[in-house]
């Protein structure tokens, strides 16, 4: 702990004023606070699990001289997580009868029918308006809307409305008074946060030192990254979380560093912030990360949270295991590092000791003689959990495979390497598909997947093997199309 006493209230900006709050239950959700206490019922609840986007609000945070505008799902965001931010909701955008450009465009393009998803759509498009400026495209709008379900319109008018307002850099009143708003955010109190008492609290340490002290004192506390998973423990499982340590205020935790050898991702880095770094490693990681959850989920969800949760289908883990990534864990100021695959012990079980936390992740770049591919297979292209996720790193000597790292998600209780497949790949020739068959057949020895609502075990086994074909076909340089995303309708 630092010498200064911790702040006992969260502080944020709302409706143009500083707001301080204490005395709320640690697991209070932002949406519930908005609708039930602040009386702001423009923001809707559609699913209470961060998948439909009806509750999208924008958190404006100061980034040096600038403000960032990040859309988040208020239904699964803990109230405490808006500490230090300006909270913007659908009610903030218009001035009286003067609609914000994205609102006016939605009216002009007939972009609302039942209107229930509309407030969330407005906020995602507002964030997109500020984030993309003249770099906007149909693809960027689709990406911005991947977390906003609309059941009425078919999206075409919404997408066209979003594109119609893009005319150079944003010019709305938020842009005009950004300097003042940034100054107001900078003036908010900072430092360690501890709301509550020793039996029930929402805490946000400002430094790693404070975190260590707090976590040692409360090993039973829940470490909170972005709450994109933990939030559902509350809204769906109806768990009561009494002690929450939110990691979002530790600046050092968010740091991502790239160099020629690899990328070190801070555990607190949002998935969105990690996206660019991972994309620099391989274009497939850009594709995978762009399909990861939704924009709302990526700006909230963290690298560390995704790893520490140990989901058997988490997309990040298999993609990075194939790259020989290592995870750094720390307890009481002492770090240890291990191969990422070794961290996952079993379903929902990781090699993490009491008061130990995931601190960073190191991802080496493939070397020139290594080829890499990663594939996500799901029912829906965007915002879906994989049925199978497969990642491949092959060492090549000319046209021959000399070593292989192959990892899958969705095939076992944990993200897992395919040892038999890896062994069978050694010696395979890129020019002779017959030499790939052993590796494909080995998948059945590597995995005994489950059947569930996403896919049957048989489908998973088949697809896992077929992904070997896809990877080798692509790496071989064969001139056949393999990516649906690159196809267009015939002219």
């Amino acid at each position: 702990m630092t010498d200064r006493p911790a702040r006992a209230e969260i502080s944020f900006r709302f409706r143009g004023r500083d707001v301080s709050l204490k005395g709320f239950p640690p697991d209070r959700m932002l949406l519930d606070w908005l609708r039930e206490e602040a009386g702001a019922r423009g923001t809707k609840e559609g699913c209470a699990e961060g998948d439909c986007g009806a509750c999208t609000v924008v958190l404006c945070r100061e980034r040096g001289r600038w403000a960032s505008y990040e859309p988040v799902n208020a239904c699964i965001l803990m109230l405490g997580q808006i500490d230090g931010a300006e909270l913007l909701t659908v009610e903030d955008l218009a001035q009286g009868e003067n609609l914000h450009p994205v609102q006016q465009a939605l009216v002009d393009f007939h972009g609302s029918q039942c209107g229930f998803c509309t407030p969330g759509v407005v906020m995602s498009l507002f964030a997109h308006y500020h984030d993309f400026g003249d770099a906007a495209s149909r693809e960027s709008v689709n990406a911005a809307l991947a977390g906003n379900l609309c059941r009425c319109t078919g999206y075409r008018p919404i997408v066209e409305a979003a594109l119609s307002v893009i005319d150079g850099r944003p010019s709305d009143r938020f842009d005009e008074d950004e300097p003042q708003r940034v100054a107001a955010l900078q003036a908010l109190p900072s430092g360690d946060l501890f709301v509550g008492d020793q039996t029930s609290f929402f805490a946000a340490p400002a430094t790693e030192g404070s975190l260590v002290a707090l976590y040692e004192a409360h090993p039973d506390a829940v470490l909170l990254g972005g709450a994109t998973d933990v939030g559902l423990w509350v809204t769906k499982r109806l768990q009561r979380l009494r002690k929450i340590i939110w990691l979002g205020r530790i600046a050092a935790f968010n740091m991502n560093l790239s160099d020629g050898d690899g990328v070190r991702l801070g555990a607190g880095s949002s998935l969105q912030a990690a996206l660019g770094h991972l994309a620099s490693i391989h274009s497939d990681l850009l594709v995978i990360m762009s399909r990861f959850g939704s924009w709302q989920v990526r700006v909230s969800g963290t690298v560390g949270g995704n790893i520490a949760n140990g989901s058997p289908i988490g997309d990040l883990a298999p993609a990075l295991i194939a790259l020989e990534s290592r995870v750094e864990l720390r307890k009481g100021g002492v770090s240890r590092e291990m191969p990422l695959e070794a961290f996952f012990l079993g379903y929902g079980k990781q090699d993490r000791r009491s008061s130990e936390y995931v601190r960073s992740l190191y991802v080496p770049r493939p070397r020139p003689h290594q080829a890499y591919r990663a594939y996500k297979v799901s029912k829906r292209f965007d915002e879906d959990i994989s049925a199978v996720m497969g990642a491949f790193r092959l060492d090549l000597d000319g046209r021959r495979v000399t070593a292989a790292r192959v990892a899958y998600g969705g095939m076992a209780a944990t993200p897992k390497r395919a040892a038999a497949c890896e062994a069978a790949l050694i010696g395979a020739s890129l020019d002779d598909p017959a030499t790939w068959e052993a590796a494909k057949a080995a998948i059945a020895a590597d995995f005994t997947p489950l059947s569930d609502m996403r896919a049957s075990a048989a489908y998973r086994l088949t697809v896992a093997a077929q992904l070997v074909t896809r990877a080798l076909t692509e790496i071989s340089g064969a001139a056949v199309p393999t990516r649906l995303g690159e196809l267009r309708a015939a002219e």
Partner: protein
Amino acid sequence: MPLSKPTEIPRVPLERETQVVHKPHPHDSARLHVRGMAPYIDDLREPQGMLHLAVGGATAAAGRLVSLDLAAVRAAPGVVAVLSAVDIPGANDIAPAFKDEPLFAFDEILYHGQPLFAVAATERDAARRAAKLARIEIAATPPALSVEDALATGARVLPDYEFGRGDVEAALAAAPHRLEGKFAIGGQEHFYLEGQVSSASPGEGREMNVQASTQDPTEVQHIVARILGIPDAFVNVETRRMGGGFGGKESQACAWAAMAALAAHVTGAPCKIRLDRDDDFILTGKRHAFRDDWRVGFDADGRVSVYEVALNANCGCSADLSPGVVDRAMFHASNCYYLPVARIASRRLKTNIVSATAFRGFGGPQGMIGIERAMEAVARDTGRDALDVRLANLYRPGADQTPYNMKVEDCATLPAILADLAASSDYRARREAVRAFNASSPILKKGLALTPVQFGISFTLIHLNQAGALVHVYSDGSIQLNHGGAEMGQGLFTKVAQVVAEEFGVPLDFVRITATNTAKVPNASPTAASSGTDINGMAARIAAGEVRARMAEFAAQGWGLPLAEIEFREGRVFGGNASMSFGELAKACRLNRVGLSAAGYYKTPDISWDRAHVKGKPFFYFAYGACCAEVAIDTLTGESRVLGADILHDVGSSLNPAIDMGQVEGAFIQGMGWVTTEELVWDGKGRLTTHAPATYKIPVASDTPARFNTRLYLRPNATESLYRSKAVGEPPFMHGIAVFCALLDAVHACAPRGHADLASPATPEAILNAIASLR
């Protein structure tokens, strides 16, 4: 930055210019929607002391309830009352007709999660937590879940029914070619963005005032009255807007309103229930899953001589709206094709899943997709292009009798649409381009299909084809409009207001739209069957016309002019050289004791249906359309993408082309979801495992095809409908069938011969299985 040109809203070609109708007015609530200022029921400020409800449900899908111990529920913090079957003063019956579904189960368990009790607590969170504390003992029996299970048990919710003509066996024996198949078609969750919600406040005496998110306030009124054991006249139900309905808030809205009303009755406090999304998935009905067992006989040109289909409908645990849904599947089992010999049979199967219910298309899609799938098979078999096979089988003069013995009067519109779309979508050239692509692409395959839709407009339950409206003109000239239809986003209120404004010759903003309310317009039909605008708009036009006639007569007398010379336009009234504002005339009417309010009533003429004798004309007219879809599949994983969709859809002389474009596009995407990513999965115990958007996948923005060209076919309706417009809510849903047929076409591209067994939805797994079935 390369931005393509935005889609244009077409102008409706008119013989006579209009002022308000046929124009692209925005949705009446659009400016409120975008500001978050359009209130839905859960947004209304709660009255003091309002209680919140949560539901406790069955822990098995079939069996008998042995004991229900609610002591812990009652003792939980915040709990005010716990309600179960014993607390119902009236009848424990929420079924629309057949008394086969209780509000709370008390003996037989019908499905997993079926409500056993409800908790009323001071806070919603407290109610949800308390509802988990019940001790429930059920003597469970193995559930029947699928079509196959039900065919094995033989259980039905209603008797089998069939119609047709000719000797099917003889015709099949005589046909040069024959094919048959069993086609599994999945159901669909509505996924309205606003979940089920209702609130109830006790009034004086035994009155109950209910706010319900429902397409059928009148049915909610009936059910609330039935549960409470009070006359309908004591129950007022109001619905301003729904956050989506799609059929899912017709019968399925009743239980929640009834629970809220029951709790309000028992506690004396206002009570609200808003289902959590997971509960909404588990506790409310969905589109029926079907298995269409079909046989077809045809010649070398693909001309069909005989078609037989057994429509096996998984109706779930009760009849609900299945009588009408499965009948409509039968009516549309022939789509737009003349079948010289036909047998359309249906089985309404009873299973232990939540009762299937209305969903946009109301059975039509499940019937229609069967014959479209058969058309693809015929094309595959004969080697002819599937569009040519379809064209060869269309209704035509002399071959215009449907299997249910209605004559199709308009045999010209659909061929014109098909020709227009085939040209505008460049179907023939793209067929060649797809073939060329497939020849050089071993892993990815493309598919193409152009499919027609012919959808009958009218409730096939004839008595529902009636509507009422109430129009008040106030003495300042402002107008209040009320009718029996409910707004769920489809733009009904906007269109009906346009009709009223047109009648009075006033700008649209003179007309104040008010919430649907059983106290204002009684005995309304559900807003369903695409008929909302047709019938409510007519009733409103009649009401407005009556008031206008009185006003015109008064003006004619005052000015000493013949009635025919009085004209209402641009917010004024003209006669000879005189004119005055509409408001001035309204004021003068009031001062001279001219009545400024009227109730309008309309019933659809010229329709009839004798089900027992398979006779009559169940449809007032047909709405037509066609869609050309291009898709690609990945033969390694079964993943697919819809690359393009070109749609031409018949809306008659559209009342509002902007709203109609939205209906057509939105319906198509919903139909595309139905046949691709939207998969409902129950586990062996009868638990729905796809019960939230994390596991149930409706289309997102990137699923909308990059090539997406929607056009409206804007010729006046040959039938005398409201301003010669056509109903539009459901028909374009079935354009999604083109996507399914294109996916089948892509699967067939994997092998030169053979018929693939592709189930719907064509998930990646279904597509991979279909490819395997070819080899």
